[in-house]
């Protein structure tokens, strides 16, 4: 089975996704007609890009768009993205979830254009409409037998992906909705490697299975010390982390100087999430670390250390962070953490006007520092 193929199997079960290998990073991203975003252009992306803004501004949608351009040849990724938003799975009988990717549930195509070290390109996602049969089940009360009626109407049959890599030939893939799922017809292979993405969504603390797999890779490559070093900034008691299985379930045991090792879960959701980020940044094939609500579960006192860990890990591997937060503490902590590498930080606030127009305000390190000094909340 092709590696990309398993991505959408059991989409709702996976907390993270592992995408194809890439060498470097995203420099700009233009999003058109995607979910709640009519049009938005992100440029001058840095090593760490923090997105802030009010609820519904489109922060998570940006991460979703980045995950798609990081892996433009995997239409099935849409199912995972919907699963992480706890939206119902889509199939031939239920298209709402798929239609929700299109701005205003419209028929206008989604256009994602980017520039990056993968060469950049454009991805156009078009809805494919056709006449379908809707079967409606009715029941007037619990004692009457249910009736069923069918009607024909125009329905979303699937979507077409057109990937236009800069300097390469177009690649088209189609996703067709079928009863109980969808079918993807692959159209080719990209010459350059996609950026790849490692997505950690906000709704669940962590996935111990993914972390254990990545930690095993770290052990195999004798790089577990880097993980330990990074994790000690979050919990200085950590001496060793051991991946394994217990009762057929993956587990990570932590040595924190007690008489015996303890499950890492006991150290808290924040610890587990950081462990997933650290192992993902260091070992996953994807180069985009995409984290929704990056502050989730983190105590303010370890936030600076967490950023420092990411900066240190970059010495060993090239990756890029796109994340969201609502936390003032998390933003303040960047001022301490990025003092020696101010060019690595960007904060973007997304503002949504009453007429639904989106605008972007970018803060570099100096501007964020001055705003904080002046007592201004940039969120």
């Amino acid at each position, binding site marked *: 089975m092709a590696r990309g193929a398993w991505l959408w199997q059991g989409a709702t079960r996976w907390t993270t996704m592992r995408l194809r290998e890439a060498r470097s990073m995203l420099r700009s991203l233009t999003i058109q007609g995607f979910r709640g975003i009519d049009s938005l252009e992100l440029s001058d992306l840095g090593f760490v890009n923090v997105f802030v803004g009010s609820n519904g501004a489109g922060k998570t949608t940006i991460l979703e768009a980045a995950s798609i351009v990081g892996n433009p040849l995997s239409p099935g990724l849409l199912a995972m993205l919907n699963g992480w938003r706890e939206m119902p799975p889509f199939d031939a009988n239920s298209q709402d979830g798929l239609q929700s990717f299109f701005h205003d549930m419209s028929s206008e195509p989604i256009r994602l254009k980017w520039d990056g070290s993968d060469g950049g390109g454009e991805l156009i996602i078009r809805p494919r409409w056709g006449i379908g049969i809707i079967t409606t089940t009715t029941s007037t009360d619990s004692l009457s037998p249910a009736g069923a009626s069918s009607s024909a109407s125009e329905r979303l049959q699937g979507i077409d992906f057109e990937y236009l890599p800069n300097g390469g030939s177009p690649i088209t893939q189609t996703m067709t909705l079928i009863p109980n799922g969808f079918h993807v017809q692959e159209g080719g292979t990209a010459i350059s490697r996609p950026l790849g993405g490692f997505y950690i969504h906000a709704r669940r603390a962590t996935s111990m299975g993914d972390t254990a797999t990545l930690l095993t890779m770290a052990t195999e490559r004798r790089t577990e010390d880097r993980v330990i070093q990074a994790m000690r900034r979050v919990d200085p008691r950590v001496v060793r982390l051991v991946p394994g299985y217990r009762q057929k379930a993956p587990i990570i045991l932590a040595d924190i100087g007690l008489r015996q090792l303890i499950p890492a879960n006991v150290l808290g959701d924040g610890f587990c999430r950081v462990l997933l980020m650290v192992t993902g940044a260091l070992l996953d094939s994807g180069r985009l670390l995409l984290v929704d609500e990056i502050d989730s579960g983190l105590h303010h006192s370890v936030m600076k250390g967490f950023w420092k860990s990411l900066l240190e890990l970059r010495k060993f591997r090239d990756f890029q962070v796109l994340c969201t937060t609502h936390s003032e503490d998390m933003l303040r902590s960047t001022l301490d953490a990025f003092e020696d590498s101010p060019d690595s930080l960007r904060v973007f606030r997304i503002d949504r006007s*009453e007429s639904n127009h989106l605008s972007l305000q970018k803060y570099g390190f100096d501007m964020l520092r001055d705003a904080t000094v002046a007592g201004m909340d940039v*969120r």
Partner: protein
Amino acid sequence: MTTEKGLRSICKPVAVAVEGADYFYSLLAQIDGPVEFADVQLWDFAEIGSPERFVQLLKSLAGFSTKIRAVGLIRDAEESAESKRSELRRAFERNGLAVPSQAGVIAAGPPATGFLVMPVGKESGCIEHAFLESGACAASLECAKAFLKCVDRSDRNDNWRAKVQVHAIIAASDHPSATLGQSVKQKLWNLSHPTLGVMLDFVRRLAWG
């Protein structure tokens, strides 16, 4: 009125930015309460030093284009009122806002803008000069002058001398450890005197167009 100085977002349509805690709390003590100043939010640009940078940052905050209807800047004249007036005009101009023709004049916006250099009518000085000229605490003022004679040095300037006298007067009050802002709240000064009243009048005109 917003009374705390933590990280704040734009929550009132009239932004008045002042230079330092003395200005901030002196004004706060006067506008916190009266309904005519309910739309005013005070800011302090002293920590970042540059009013131009402050206006740039204010413009970057969420809600600037939709909520703000007026922006005012108040600061000391220090050694040269003219250079400070130019600095404040530049703060508006370089950030693409309306530029008032002179101090105390409100330029039509949106947003409306205005600036004030204290003490008004003087070519140098600081807010403490305005407090000293307000005519309050006459007895203490004589003692403060005498105290200044004892501690004065030739390398000190007039602004330092004004601050020494103001704090000597405060030190002789019922609350000797009060800041200038706290002393305003304790009604130690004659706020209705034109030298001080000009500030409140400026804020009122900014708030009410």
